[in-house]
């Protein structure tokens, strides 16, 4: 079980050879499945029962340390309501990673998550790392989506998969770490089609073109 602390960002002191990689990560999923809550848990170690709904999108960053690399996530937390769908490409375009979230107590949100996965496979960069998060695992008593069903779907589509709980912090750091581990970190590996990295609009500064420094 993941610890509650968000201290993953502490850099080991005096490790000058550490590589620093930046990745753009986007959270997608139906409204109220807990996207903002997952980010808040990961970035600040907090959980707000009454987390406000997200309009448009919110942006946060968090750094995690792997053995020899420091990975900085630039996280776009998007609005879940279907109506805001048209804004989504602005955020997932050029993202190297995505977490598609559903709520284990609501079957419809799982269906919506599948649609997001499809859309990412079609429209996002082909090398994007996608993770599927079945959130609110603390409400297992009200479960409507079986673990095995989601796991099978994830396997079929080559997705990382975990059941998480923003409330208890279960698997929250872990899912981000798993993504960090899976992301290519060698020079140039993040390049290619992901070169658009953090580009939000055409004509952005070249600083955004490489993911590793």
């Amino acid at each position, binding site marked *: 079980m993941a610890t509650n602390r968000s201290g993953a960002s502490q850099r080991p002191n005096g490790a000058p050879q550490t590589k620093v990689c930046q990745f753009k990560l986007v959270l997608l999923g139906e409204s109220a499945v807990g996207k903002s809550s997952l980010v808040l848990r990961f970035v600040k170690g907090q959980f707000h029962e009454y987390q406000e*709904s997200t309009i448009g999108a919110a942006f946060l960053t968090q750094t995690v340390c792997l053995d020899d690399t420091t990975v900085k996530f630039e996280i776009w937390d998007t609005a879940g309501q279907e*109506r805001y769908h048209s804004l989504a490409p602005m955020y997932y375009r050029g993202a190297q990673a995505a977490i598609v979230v559903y709520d284990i107590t609501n079957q419809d949100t799982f269906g919506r998550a599948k649609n997001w996965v499809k859309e990412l496979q079609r429209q996002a960069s082909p090398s994007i790392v996608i993770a599927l998060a079945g959130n609110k695992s603390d409400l297992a008593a009200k479960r409507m989506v079986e673990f095995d069903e989601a796991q099978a779907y994830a396997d079929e589509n080559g997705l990382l998969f975990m059941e998480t709980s923003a409330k208890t912090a279960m698997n929250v750091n872990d899912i981000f770490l798993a993504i960090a581990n899976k992301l290519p970190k060698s020079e140039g590996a993040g390049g290619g089609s992901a070169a658009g990295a953090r580009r939000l609009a055409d004509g952005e500064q070249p600083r955004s073109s490489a993911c590793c420094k």
Partner: protein
Amino acid sequence: MRDNNEEKFIFAACTYFAKNHPGETCGSNGLPLTPSSISILGRAQRLLTIQHPNLCTYLDIIRGKHERIIVVTEVFGKSLEEWKSKFSFDEVTNIGLQISKAMLFLHKQDIVHRTLADGNILLDGSGRVKLFNYGMYYMTGGGSDVPFPLGLPRYLSPETILNGGGPAADIWTFGIILLELCIGKLWQNLKPGPILRRILTLVHAANPAERIAREHDCFEAYKLVSDHLRNIIEKCLKIYPSERATFEEVVEELSQANVKTVVDVKKPRGLMGCKLQYLYHWWQLTGGDIQAELKKNGLIKNSPPILSMPIAILLDGCTIGGKRGALFDRRIAKYSLDLLKARLSHIPPQDFYPLMHERRRDYDAVALPKIIRERDTEYQFYRLLWFQRLLIGYPYTAQYIRAEAEIDIPPLVRGDVWAALLGVKGDIEEQYERIDKETPTPTDRQIDVDIPRCHQYCWLLCGSAGHRTLKRLLKAWLLTNPQYVYWQGLDSLTAPFLYLNFCNEARAFACLSAFVPKFLHKFFLKDNSAVIKEYLAKFWQMAAFHEPELATHLHEINFVPELFAIPWFLTMFSHVFPLHKIVHLWDALLVEGPALPLFMGVGILRQLKDTLLDSGFNECILLFSDLPEIDIGECVKESIEMCRSSPKSISYRRFTNEPEVKDPMDIVEIPMEVLLSEISPRISMSDFFSLTCQDKCCVVDIRSNLLYEKSCIEGSVNVPYSGVQLGQRDLRALGLNAHRALRHAVTHKNTIVIASAEDETAQLFSDYLVKCNVPRVCILYGGISALQSHVPSLFIVPIKKTGSK
């Protein structure tokens, strides 16, 4: 006659604890259960609106620590419990009539009293009766939110004791009260258990009233009671609730008795003649403290926490032991107005009755920030009385209300004033009533998940009463606006109206319905992308107009408003600020009109300017994802200043509810693609003309020297575009003349108008000026040629000066 002591206290407080939920249980949605105190507060809001001559007005319901509830209400006279004298039958009839009028009123509102007792019936020397704290049963959800039983045993009806009972139980209690008034207190020396048993044995009695009288050895006395009264008592004390009289009948019968009614009391003048709610409000502003008095009187005791700790906690979270007010504490603390009277003693009597045609006094306080004015007793005294007058005259006083609201709005009447500013009038209840707010729709799911996340720090909105009402409002609005759909954020937008009109749902709805067309026309269309795009583009232009340096920086780091400002405008900031800030923003919005929000956006940027200028893309966007503290007072002031000093046409938007602009002199509309690419706004010819007349603009003519010399706008400077080096961000490069003219314009806050023969050069040149940090740059709509054909009188043939470039 009333004695002085009676007049001294005008309100009172009592306090009790709400029930604790056992353990940390969650509702089915995984969210924590609403604390009982919140539910109580939500229901009690309705009590605050009840006005009746025989009911003590509720003034406030406060939530203290540890689920404590404090109820503040009007008080007067003495309770029947305290009146030791015996009443004549006429007096009993009089008292009974007033009680039953109050009860009839409550029952008509579907409020059951249940706790009617001699201790909460107040009577003054002139024979007036008022019921005190009659809403306990109502506010506590029929007693389910409190850990103690409601009602005194001797007043409970048999069916209530057996755990049932509706409104008819109140009739029983009323009968007992009348009986007590006639033959004296009942079951005086018995413990609750035996009293309840006695009442239950009445079930077998044919005539319970007689039986009670006999039990008390008062049968003779009872027979002496007038037939009329006895008859009523017996109609009330029927075992079967369905056989009992109703208050309607009781009022009817008691009215026939024709006893001399209440002594007329002249309505007091001066301070004591003011609305009780106002008095309470001013008293608080003077430093009146309800809790302190309760503590002083021992009604709130601070016992060491260890004493109230439970002895054991079971695994399911239930606790055993640990004391916490087992029974309802019926004591009350009374408050005098001495503090307030002293504070306002120097106010001349005529000031209590302001006249509309009189010139208003200027108060020193106007110079202070609004939040301070809102806490100033004397200032609020004058403001409230004045607004009260104006509001009585609404809608005829609409324009005065607007003018006063421009100064500030007293928080106590903000709901009324907003409704007036939005032009709400007519039979709004009737209209609201007719809307179907219940039938499920596909949008319900989204509304259901959004409401528990909407301004939940506010205890009014976080309770189930708040949730239900918000949902009804949203559904009603969607139903009456079929052209629109539910966008997340509509909940936040509705919240301020609900907050201010918590017990006036129809008015909350009417306000929302008037607000959207005025400020958010077409924003909630299914496809609103063009509307939002235009709005954001306009916002960005206003930023460039007033804050060129910041705008340039943000442009350069590609920080576009789409990334952060959608929630600002879609919800008119109600999704980004807490309610206490929104009300101040909206106070200004409602007075200034739909252009203001654009400048409020700029005002926010301006407050963060230093940080933003030092930040790159990531830091900037982080800043907006977690907006730092914004000084709303300052933001409002600056934005109004910007809004008023900007030519009206520069903030023109196509998607508004305003009548279409027809006069070519006023037109500034350009195709959307052009708008999206322009950094500086366009100014209409008529705005330009009026600026010229006031000598408040500097015209930069960027046509070629040749054209300029043929004919030019009087007073303009010529900077031929072909000679400008866009890379060189230094005004001096434009030549001495132009540099001096622009500097002059900047220092005098004049507007700089680019006049050109074609749009493209005008755009590029305005861009350039913005990059040189020149504020207040705009482009003349239609350029030189349009102006020449519409206002030829502005043109002259320049006198050739040697050396002028």
